[in-house]
Structure formats: C-alpha cells, structure tokens
C-alpha cells in the first residue's frame, strides 16, 4: 500500500512540475494587464512600461469608439534587450511573434534585413502623411514602404541650468552658434567653476544630434546609405568636442552616458550648466533630477553657422505589425489610431511627455494644460518646438546604422574624448572597419 502511495505521489509531483513548466509562459502574461472585454485578441510587445500603459489606455478609447470592432489587447512589457532579441528570434524562426511590436530605432534596421517580416503600413500612413513630420516616417522605410510608426519627433533641444548661467551672467538666448556656446562655456567655467556640459563617451546622443543637424542629407550614414564616418564635417565636430574637453568647458559624462545613475546624481547637484538631448529626455529630468525643477530652460540647439538648422529628430520607437499577425488589418488600424490620429497625438504628450509627430497638435490648447512637464519646465515648451519646426533635420537610418552607432559607442567616442587620441586617425580606422 505504502509503495502505491509513493508511486502515486511521485506521479503527481512529476506531473505538476510538468504542468508548472508548461504554464510558465501563461503565468507571466497573466501578470500583465489585459484590457478586459471581449473582442479580437491582439498581442503586443514593448520594452517600455509607459508605452504598455499607453496602449492599454488607447485600447479602451478604441473600444469606446468602435463597438463593432472590439479589441482585446495583451500588452507585454519585456526588458529592452530581451524584447528585441526575443522578437528577432521569433521573426527569424517564423513562429511566436506578436501581432504588434515596439522596435527601437537603432534596432529597427535589423528587422528590415532580407525580406522584411513586418507588414508595410502604407495604407494607414499615406492618408495622414501630410500632417506627420516626414523624416519620422522615412527612418522606418525600405523600398518605399513604411514599416513603423513613431511615438515622437525627438527634436533635439538644449537644456540650460538657468541658475548656473545667471551666476555667470550668461543669457542663453545670446547663444546662437556652437562657437558662441563654447565662448559662453568658457565664461561659465571661469565664473562658476562648473563645466558648461557633459559629453557622452559610450552612447551617441552627444555626437549624433550635432552631426544630424548639419544642413544637407548626409548624416552618420550618407545619402547613398553608406557609413559616413570619414566625412570631414564629422571630423570637425569631433574636434570641436575634443576641444571642449581639453579646455575644461565640457567633461566626459559620469557613467559614460546620459542615462546612467551617476550622471543623474551629478547633474541634479548642478554638476554641469547644460546638456543637449532630444525632447523625450524631459521625463528623465522630472523623474531622476527633481532638484532642478524650475531651474531648467529648454532652448533650440545652437547652429553650426548663423541661420543654420538648430535641431534634429533623434531616437524613436517604431511600432510595427508582424507578418505573423492573424488580424493584420485590425492591428494596423489600431496603431494608426493610437499614434497617428489627432486624439492619439494629444495623448502622446499628455501621458508620455513626447513631442508628437503630428505637428498640427503642437499649438492646440490641450498641450498647454498643466502636467508634470509644464510644472517642471514652464508652459512654453512647445513654443520652442514651433520655433524650430522647419529646422528639424532628419537622420538617415538603414542596415548600416546598428554597426555605425556601435563603433561610435564602443570605440570612437571613448578613444577621442577620454584617451585624447587624434580624431582623424580614430575616424579613419573606424571607417575602415565598417567597410
């Protein structure tokens, strides 16, 4: 009898372990919020918790407006690298991909290699094309098809610490060009002992906007689509940055990039007088640098020469529909609703603090309403944006982008800005590696 009992218990144990293993996946999806109600099931993967919440909100709005086309959305949030890798494997193997996925812009070209396993979104994008900042569509395009819809314009701006500038007697509105900026930086350093800015050495947000804002179609990738690191203009910019470091006007970013804890602490304590980053960086100020509240002013970036472009659209997340989706049309309609419609664009600002890609909403009253961003930065955020509306240079993104940003992040910036190597030599070596 005892023996039987033992066998029975063992069988139950093994079986329950087996079941637990099988249901592992299910349990994790249950943890995420499902927006209730019946309707067509759609699965979405994203790497940003706030994006997930945004979709949950928008699906409720959609269901209110479309009683005949209800959606039952499961928005799964995974860590950044995990999600991109998981999606890549699912797409490579042809199994297990969600209907909709958020793909970060520097990763996006990986998914367009070969025959894209994402669906062209032209039928929902083209009707709205006139209202959308075109460059934000181009970065997710291949052979005339648009595969992703962005969250924001990502206009680069410069965030000045007004308190420090006031102490040095510098007026940010007088800084028109990067030369002015360096001169003002010298004054700030002399009067306050604080560096004017920090430069990233392991990420590309200091260099790329300065390159992208140059007039003309060349960028880190040239107009033909080849890596462009041997461009003399890029050499000039790198020399400019190296010069800032040598003169003490800039220091290398603590923690090597503007998203590190070390940097947040440093900046929060008034470690530097300014930083240039895209608009979407506002959230980092409000969330991680609370002591700077009401001290930060947002201005357009200085131009390389007077009258030149003062901004560039940087970063982004393309939302795409995979070829594995069983309800591709509904998925497309939904993301168009969430990210292209007027209503969606207002919510992009309200919920996420993004500069929405649909420019006509920028001066709408809804964007003046108080929220945590206006409390922190004042109510004229969008005035700056409207001021540079026609100066937001686009970037070239293609299959070479991941390679190029990679070599910048791991070699070029560190060797020139930290080790002080000759930028010309470093850039030459880097472009040879990219060939």
């Amino acid at each position: 009898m005892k023996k039987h009992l033992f066998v029975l218990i063992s069988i139950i144990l093994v079986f329950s372990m087996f079941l637990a293993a099988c249901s592992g996946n299910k349990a994790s999806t249950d943890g995420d919020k499902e927006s209730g109600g019946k309707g067509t099931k759609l699965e979405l993967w994203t790497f940003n918790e706030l994006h997930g919440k945004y979709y949950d909100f928008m699906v409720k709005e959609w269901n209110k407006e479309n009683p005949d086309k209800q959606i039952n959305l499961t928005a799964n949030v995974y860590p950044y690298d995990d999600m991109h890798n998981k999606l890549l494997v699912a797409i490579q193997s042809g199994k297990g991909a969600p209907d909709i996925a958020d793909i970060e812009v520097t990763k996006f070209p990986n998914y367009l290699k070969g025959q894209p396993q994402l669906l062209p979104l032209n039928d929902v994008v083209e009707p709205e094309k006139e209202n959308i900042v075109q460059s934000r569509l181009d970065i997710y395009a291949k052979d005339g098809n648009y595969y992703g819809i962005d969250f924001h314009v990502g206009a680069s701006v410069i965030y000045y610490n007004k308190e420090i500038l006031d102490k040095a007697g510098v007026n940010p509105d007088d800084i028109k060009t990067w030369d002015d900026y360096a001169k003002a930086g010298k004054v700030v350093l002399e009067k306050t002992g604080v560096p004017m800015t920090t430069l990233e050495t392991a990420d590309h947000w200091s260099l790329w906007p300065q390159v992208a804002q140059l007039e003309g179609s060349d960028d880190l990738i040239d107009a033909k689509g080849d890596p462009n690191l041997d461009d003399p203009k890029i050499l000039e910019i790198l020399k400019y940055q190296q010069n800032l470091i040598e003169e003490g006007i800039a220091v290398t970013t603590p923690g090597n990039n503007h998203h590190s804890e070390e940097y947040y602490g440093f900046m929060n304590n008034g470690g530097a007088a300014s930083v240039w980053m895209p608009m979407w960086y506002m959230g980092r100020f409000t969330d991680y640098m609370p002591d700077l509240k009401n001290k930060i002013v947002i201005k357009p970036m200085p131009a390389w020469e007077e009258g030149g472009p003062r901004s560039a659209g940087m970063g982004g997340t393309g939302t795409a529909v995979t070829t594995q989706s069983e309800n591709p049309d509904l998925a497309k309609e939904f993301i168009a609703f969430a990210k292209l419609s007027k209503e969606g664009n207002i919510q992009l600002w309200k919920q996420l603090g993004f500069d929405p890609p649909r420019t006509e909403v920028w001066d709408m009253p809804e964007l003046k309403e108080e929220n945590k961003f206006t409390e922190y930065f004042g109510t004229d955020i969008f005035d700056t944006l409207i001021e540079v509306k026609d100066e937001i240079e686009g970037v070239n993104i293609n299959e070479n982008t991941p390679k190029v940003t990679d070599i910048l992040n791991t070699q070029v910036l560190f060797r020139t800005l930290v080790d002080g190597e000759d930028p010309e030599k470093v850039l030459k070596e880097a472009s040879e590696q990219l060939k």
Partner: protein
Amino acid sequence: MERKKKLSNLLYSQKIAPYFFVLPFLLSFAIFFAYPVFSTVVMSFQEVLPGQVTFIGLENYKDLWNPTFLKSLKNSTVYTALTLCVLIPIPLLLAVFLNSKIMVAKNFFRSIIFIPALTSVVVAGIIFRLIFGGQEGALLNSIIGIFGFEPKAWLNNAGLSMFALVILATWKWMGINLLYFLAGLQNIPRELYEAADVDGASTWKKFTNVTVPLLKPITIYVFTISIYGGYSMFAESYMLYGNNNSPNDMGLTIVGYLYRNGIEQNNLGFGSAVGITLLVLTFVITLVQLSLSGMFKKEE
C-alpha cells in the same frame, strides 16, 4: 494483457534494455547538442536573413580577421590566463587549510567561501558595478581614499576593468574550486602522511611531495573547466558594464562578440562563425593542456 507482457519482455531483454535506458540521453544529446552544432557549422558558411539564406563560402571566417574580434580574443585570453593564475593556487591552499585538523570553524569558512557561487551573476555583476563605480563616493574609491589615493575610474581603464572582472570571477568561483580540491584531499589516504611523519618530513615537504602530486587529477579537471569557463565568460562583463558595449571594448569577450553580431545585429551566419571558432579554440587549448599534463599517456 498480451501487450503488457510484450513490453515487459522488451524491458527485461538484455539486448534491448540498455538501449532503451540510454535512449533519453541519446535523444536529448542529438536534439539539443548534435543537431544545433551541425546547423551552426552549416550556418557559419551562410548569410542568414529572414526569407533569404545564401551560401557565401568562407566569407564569414574571412570577416573574423578584424580588430574588434582580435580584441575580444585578447580579452578572453587574458581573462582566462589571469583566472587560472588565481583560481587554481588559492583554492588549493585554502582547501588544505580547511582540511587541516588544527583549523577552527571549518564549516563556517567553507560556507562563507561557497555562498558567492550560489549568487546569480546578474546580482553579483550589479553589486560589483556599484563597488567599482567611478565617483568619489563609490565603495572602492572611498576605501582607497582613506589611504590617500585619488579616486579611480575603475571601469573606464583597460587594466583596472580587467582587475575588476578577475576579482568578480575570484569571488564567485573560489568556492566551487575549493570544493573540488576538498573532495580530492579527503581521498588522499592518511597513511601517506603518517609515513611522511615517520620519515620526519616538514609540513611543506608533505604538501609538495604528497598533497600536490596526489591532487593532480583534480587539478587537471579544475584547470580544464576553468579554461572553458574563462573563454565562455559573458554575463559577468555584460552585467559589470550594464550592457554588451564597454568603452573601447575593454570588456568585450568572444561570446560578447558572438552575441553582438548574431543577435544584436541579426547576423546569425557571422555569429555562427564566431561560435565555431570559439569551439575549435577551446577544444585545441584543452587538448594541448591535457596532453602536456600527461592525461593521454598510458598508465604506468
């Protein structure tokens, strides 16, 4: 009933039963090892893109000859060599101490040294990142500050970051190697030491002439797994730098390079070539090491 009998006959058959019981291993080996290795070899000669797979001959292997791969190769080799220098002699000595009769609180020390092995690399990596932080207030910098040293950017300097990686490896794997050596020590017959005592051997003589030679098989084993462990290191560096990109690639390992190309840049063909190179490399090094240590000689 008839069927059941047939089945049990089958199980009791001396010819078939062994195969039947080995089958799960054979199957899992074939599915999870042999097949993937085979397809990796095939893929290393291909350009693998969704919907487009083309044979490109040795192109992937030719592309391996680039400064970044060589750097990852160098990093992995230096790391492996340093961990071998630290993780063989120190655990060996500690094991001898912890095995000796006069040592107090043996079990306490054994568990203290072993606990890090149970900690996840992810957690350990994050903690070490904080310890080795570049600011003045970071743990290590404030410690060396007491002795009047300037704060150092530990993870931004090639030499210092390798030091941090080796310290992390030492902290984590010390306990495991110690355990192997302890097991080996307990297998050495006590009579040998007693005989040495009778001959009037000193403690050092006993260590060099009895302990070390008799621990040779264990040492060779630990050596072999440490070589493999060193070359396959990835997670430690990934966690220490917060991602796969370290400044000037100072923390890039071969596996990191494989991951960067195969997964992060969707270039699975090239990634496969890196993987096969790593496989061949560790295989050759291990073979050389084993033959140097006399593993293939016939027992005398």
